[in-house]
């Protein structure tokens, strides 16, 4: 994204907006990760606490999901770069 077409006052406000949004996006990534790994790993509802197996699964799942998101992020950044109009 290129916001250089805006004036400085606008860019400052946009920067504040981006920061606020990053906080929200991080929260969303986090709660999304929790739900996915819970859905994938928790299967026994006769007990109140995660079994050892479930907890191991949650740990692996969280690791894997974060690495996945990071890799998508890198590819996304590269491809977005290429999509930007030339000379901009």
């Amino acid at each position, binding site marked *: 994204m290129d916001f250089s077409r805006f004036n400085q006052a606008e860019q400052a406000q946009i920067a504040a907006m981006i920061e*606020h949004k990053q*906080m*929200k996006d991080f*929260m*969303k990534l*986090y*709660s999304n*990760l*929790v*739900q996915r*790994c*819970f*859905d994938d*790993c*928790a*299967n026994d*509802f*006769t*007990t*109140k*606490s*995660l079994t050892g197996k*479930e*907890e191991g699964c*949650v*740990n692996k799942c*969280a690791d894997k999901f*974060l690495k996945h998101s990071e890799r998508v992020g890198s590819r996304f950044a590269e491809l977005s770069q290429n999509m930007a109009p030339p000379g901009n």
Partner: protein
Amino acid sequence: MSYFGGGNQQAQTINPQNIAMAEQELEMVTDLFNRIVDSCQEKCIKLGEGQGDLNQQDSLCIDNCVAKFFETNSKVGEKMQNMSQQQ
């Protein structure tokens, strides 16, 4: 004299950042609740089957499911905190 607390209340100003923080906190709690409703319905309840009531097994499943979701939430939270400290 004020019924509510003290003398430090003259000229109270609203700090927009405080409001935004409260909004974010509220947002997170509601989001967590909605995700638990979804996931535990999927895990515990067949909506179209049986009666319109929760039987004992459904109820036990829901109770354990909510507890396990909270535990998963904490575990993942700790994990991410550890990761960010290692960086």
